[in-house]
């Protein structure tokens, strides 16, 4: 187990350098720098431009900027936003809970619906339900998030007027950020109805972000179940005279879950990518939305360190999945 862990951890360092380098270089390939992006019609004097460039070190050669940045990160300093002059870490920490909240809601939604659907489809293999479900899951898995989100807003918010258009909570409510999770903090709010508002706001983004994982989980569960249902031990269980539901849930599903867990774990990184789009569509104040806005502002420190933080997170989640998988399936560890 220790060797397994070490081999995984040893991959982290090159990944770290690669990610910081890519984040550093890619944003610099976009024309315009953060200082110029902020200048309006009034223009800016050359001296002032030089002064600001110097302050943020953009007058240095690129390799020097990159080295300085690496050293700074290793020292634990993620830098300061060029635009707001707040520390990137502070901004990340305030916005991150919103992203976690949305991602957790989306994956729960995907699991709660995807697992039972997959099981039913497997049990009724070849039925109209099975074909219908698999057809829809192909659609779901290839759903363009941007289009899907806007359609949902158009249908449920604008036409039917049953869900809010965007945000985390109605602007009428003020919730003191205690844990940062709106669905928790709202219970401490003095305003009655704050929680109802928070729940109604998360519904659409949760569905939009959860659609792709849902489709994948449903398909995965189905095929994994089909495999397991043909196993000898399932036949044995049936032969012992156990009821259909009991066989499916206790004997088959538990074993079928192993590959599904991997898929769920791996979809976490996909979720973070999807969250960037979903947060943008729904003005969900999380780190995805923050990064997209920062591209427009050419806010180099935010983009570099924000990308790094998200990469670290994905690495950690993947590591966790690897370990969990190894734990669930002892054969992997060898």
């Amino acid at each position, binding site marked *: 187990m220790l060797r397994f862990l070490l081999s995984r951890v040893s991959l982290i360092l090159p990944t770290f350098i690669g990610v910081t380098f890519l984040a550093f270089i890619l944003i610099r390939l*976009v*024309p*315009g*720098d953060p200082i*110029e*992006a*902020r*200048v*309006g*019609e*009034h*223009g*800016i*004097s050359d001296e*002032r431009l030089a002064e600001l460039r110097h302050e943020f070190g953009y007058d240095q050669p690129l390799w020097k900027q990159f080295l300085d940045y690496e050293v700074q990160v290793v020292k634990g300093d993620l830098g300061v936003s060029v*635009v*707001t*002059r707040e520390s990137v870490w502070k*901004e990340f920490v*305030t*916005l991150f809970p919103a992203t976690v909240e949305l991602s957790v809601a989306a994956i729960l939604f995907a699991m709660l*619906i995807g697992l039972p*659907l997959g099981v039913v489809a497997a049990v009724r293999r070849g039925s109209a339900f099975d074909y219908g479900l698999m057809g829809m*899951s192909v*659609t*779901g898995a290839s759903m363009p998030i941007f289009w899907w989100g806007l359609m949902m*807003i158009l249908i*449920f*918010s*604008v036409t039917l*007027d*049953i*869900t*809010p*258009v*965007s*945000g*985390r909570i*109605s*602007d*009428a409510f*003020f919730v003191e950020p205690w844990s940062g999770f709106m669905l928790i903090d709202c219970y401490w709010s003095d305003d*009655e109805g704050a929680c*109802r*508002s928070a*729940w*109604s706001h998360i*519904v*659409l983004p949760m*569905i939009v972000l959860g*659609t792709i994982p*849902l*489709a994948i989980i*449903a398909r995965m569960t189905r095929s994994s179940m089909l495999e397991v249902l043909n196993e000898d031990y399932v036949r044995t269980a049936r032969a012992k005279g156990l009821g259909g539901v009991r066989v499916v849930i206790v004997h088959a599903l538990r074993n079928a879950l192993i590959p599904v867990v991997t898929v769920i774990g791996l979809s976490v990184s996909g979720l973070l990518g999807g969250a960037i789009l979903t947060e943008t569509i729904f*003005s969900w*104040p999380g780190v995805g*939305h*923050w990064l997209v*806005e920062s591209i*427009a502002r050419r806010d180099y420190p935010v983009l570099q360190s924000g990308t790094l933080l998200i990469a670290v997170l994905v690495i950690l989640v993947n590591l966790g999945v690897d370990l969990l998988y190894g734990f669930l399936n002892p054969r992997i560890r060898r």
Partner: protein
Amino acid sequence: MKNTAIATVCAVALTAFLGSAQAKTLVYCSEGSPENFNPMINTTGTTFDANRPIYEQLVGFRYGSTEVVPSLAEKWTVSPDGLTFTFNLRKNVKWHSSKTFKPTRNFNADDVIFSFERQWKDASPYHKVSGGGYDYWSDMDMTKLLKAIEKVDDYTVRFVLNEPNAPFLSNLAMDFATIQSKEYADALMKAGKPELIDQEPIGTGPFEFVQYVKDATIRFKAFAGYWGTKPKVDTLVYSINKDPAVRIAKLQANECQISFGPRPADLPALNADKNLTVMAQPGLNIGYIGMNTKKKPFDDVRVRKAVTMVIDQQAILKAVYQGSGQPAKNLIPPTMWSYNDKTPAYKLDIEGAKKLLAEAGYPDGFETDLWAMPVQRPYNPDARRIGELAQADLAKVGIKAKIVSYEWGEYRKRAQAGEHQMVQLGWTGDNGDPDNFFVPLAACSAHNAAQWCNKEFDDLVTKAAKTSNQAERTKLYMAAQDVMTKESPYFFIAHSVVYLPMRANVTGYKMSPFGAHRFDLVDLK
């Protein structure tokens, strides 16, 4: 699966649907995030809007007008030579408080001195805080203009100028001339966190700052201790959405009651919605095509004249502005005093243009670039489209225009350096004074988009700035506009009309000629 999903949404949404709001809350769908909470160090309208509920200046603009009225200064006197402005400050003006700061004294002269010295003097401990760039202060030439600011007593401050300057009072009403609390600044400096002054703002304005969630919301509450007319709503929220389609959807769903400018294409639908009203006002702005007078062939006034005779202004207004623009013929908009209505409107005259070109030595036309800015502005909603229309028009007299564009920062920089032959740019006024158009856009000192430097024009506008009599200034600016018309360094495209859609139950809103948004006197029926 999808059906199940939709059914689930409906069920959850119906049971969870939001109840009624408590206190009176006004939500404004704004278009972007403020950079921070101090107008001194910023130049964008978005940041100014976000700060307006919090801060005040010595003087202000009357709600919905360009007229300068008392604000933190109750009254003022100007010496006969126009060099000394003495301000009598308002008494009993309370500062906001926050979790970390409880003011022990009211607003006084020390705050005024502190706020101006922060922007002016290197010696101020706050001069370098938050980057120390005071762009508006420099743009308005304040350092050159000011000789001294003196505290006469706790409630009297005297400004001494180096030369008479008519727009000075209007400058002081602008957002950059904001007054911050010296007591708060001192406390933060002592705590070693001076930069918080621009992130957790303390002001004297009608609303107190409550919370800012980046790219999401800014929340304010009515300030109970406000010296002026108390706000009509208890809570003011700016809901930030960059996407105009989302802002409109939120407005239609009554999630916000007032929304920042819509796209021209959305106007018909908004006008048709019975729950909404759409306010409109001619904007204090100008969109134009500058012709580089330092480069061939535009160094010849006949060529520039010919260009103004072939571009179809009406077609551009119809196709691009879709009713949200009015044709321009002068640099300043018609709502501004000293507008020269005698300037003839542009008239299409292809044959006349061909003749002028032939006289200038270009009987078969020539090749030129025509720059199209990559950003959308009220005064120019679609520069590429305008470029294409102008391109087609110019082709009629043999001028082959190539449309060129760069990323915005690069575009502005290259245009300022005069790399172009023809460039689209524009301007939105800051303080309602004609000086704020003529000097930055056409004076020799300004690197203007036409690289135009005309002695006669320069003398007229310089003289006008030093004259305090408005009738006298009007004459000078009228003459300056005649010079511009004669020389035609620009093809003026349009002054845009600015629209502001809101719910029908919003009362008391007045549109600002500067495009500023202000909500303290707004009520909800």
